């Protein structure tokens, strides 16, 4: 195995294009586990963190661009980003331990394409896009369209994600992410749920999106229109919960059962919606 440290996006693309067996290293918190367990044996590891811009969080068109090498801990320490997208940041900050937080990245979590990735549902609910660099230049892709199945992405040979973009949040909007795990930390989500809401000045929901993790082969977008036109009252959140339970198509595995995951999808939908609503109401921008 070789270790490559390209200093430009073009160099990285060239290496990846020349060697289809090469793997991109961002935080490494998934890659190194699989490497050491012998599940993968790549010909090269391409560390993209030394490419300029990869470790930057910057404001762009009122939204936020987050470099592919930015650790989730760095996101949590960024006051502006946290104020704009508390749900995205709390999802990112739930991945692994304090130690893992110092390394893991949202782009890596996305490309790992695990159905339960904690940072993904809130990105999807926020309509985030990923900037993809490749042999044919760069393209922006909806985050939702990056994973295609467990462990698989829509990235073509030679492509890698250079940044994630969170669009400018509308006024009176906010988001929340909740997951269910058996312990209080360190587990993979059994169910994850993000809700992103925009209100009018009077506090009525004008638009709502919801996405679920760990209840299908990839992140799920679920119709959250039950909240639109409401003030997130009990009947509205119950309807949202029913939609979440109905939309979930989980499997039985070592982390949970189908019935449990469907039930908990609804529970988390209710709880996340209420948190997002309170945040949106309190949001000044």
């Amino acid at each position, binding site marked *: 195995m070789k270790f490559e440290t390209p200093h430009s996006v073009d160099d990285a693309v060239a290496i990846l294009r020349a060697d289809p067996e090469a793997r991109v290293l961002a935080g490494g918190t998934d890659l190194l586990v699989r490497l050491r367990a012998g599940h993968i044996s790549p010909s090269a*590891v391409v560390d993209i963190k030394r490419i300029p811009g990869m470790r930057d969080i910057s404001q762009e068109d009122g939204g936020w661009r987050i470099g592919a090498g930015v650790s989730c801990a760095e996101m949590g320490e960024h006051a502006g980003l946290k104020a704009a997208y508390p749900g995205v940041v709390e999802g990112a900050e739930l991945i692994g*331990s304090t*130690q893992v937080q*110092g*390394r893991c990245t949202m782009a890596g979590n996305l490309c790992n394409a695990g159905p339960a990735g904690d940072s993904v549902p809130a990105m999807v609910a926020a309509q985030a896009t990923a900037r993809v660099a490749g042999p044919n230049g760069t393209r922006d892709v909806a985050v939702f369209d990056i994973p295609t199945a467990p462990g698989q992405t829509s990235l073509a040979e030679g492509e890698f994600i250079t940044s994630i973009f969170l669009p400018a949040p509308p006024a009176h909007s906010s988001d929340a992410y909740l997951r269910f795990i058996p312990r209080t930390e360190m587990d993979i989500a059994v169910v994850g749920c993000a809700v992103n809401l925009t209100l009018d000045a009077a506090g009525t929901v004008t638009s709502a999106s919801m996405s679920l993790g760990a209840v299908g082969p990839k992140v799920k977008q679920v119709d959250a229109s039950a909240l639109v036109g409401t003030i997130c009252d009990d009947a509205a959140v119950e309807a949202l919960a029913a939609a979440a339970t109905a939309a979930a198509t989980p499997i039985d595995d070592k982390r949970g059962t189908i019935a449990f995951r469907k039930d908990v999808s609804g529970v988390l939908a209710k709880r996340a919606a209420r948190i997002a609503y309170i945040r949106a109401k309190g949001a000044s921008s």
Partner: protein
Amino acid sequence: MSRIHVTTTVNGDAVDYLCEADDTLLDVLRDQLDLTGSKEGCASGDCGACTVELDGRLVCSCLVLGAEAEGRTVETIEGMANGDVLHPLQKNFIEKAALQCGVCTPGILVAAKNLLDHTPDPSEEEVRYWLAGNLCRCTGYDKIIRAVLDTAAEMRGAA
């Protein structure tokens, strides 16, 4: 297989080593630099026994490649005491029986020191969540949490 030459700083000393591309920082620390205080408990980032600081940030050294340390700064348990003067956390872990078998202790001390460096007055809940990635199977955590909180108080008083 040609090996990679890495120049880095470990516990304040400039060091260089040759490593294979798939050697982790933990492998390098233990097998090449003889710094065996960092332990491999899981090799998957789930136990925290290999915790070190990389450029001041906590990481599991089992989840960092040795080659990635080029030009960076690494702090391990072996660098925590100042000569023969123990860090207050080290002193209190002994005095307050906050260790039994001791195999998780280096990782917990490095993680706790990092917490107190930027959060001098943590709540019990903050300490528990900060250390959630450091598994201990002997103590039930009780005396560890108390030792960290007591040390924080002591250091605030001393400062």
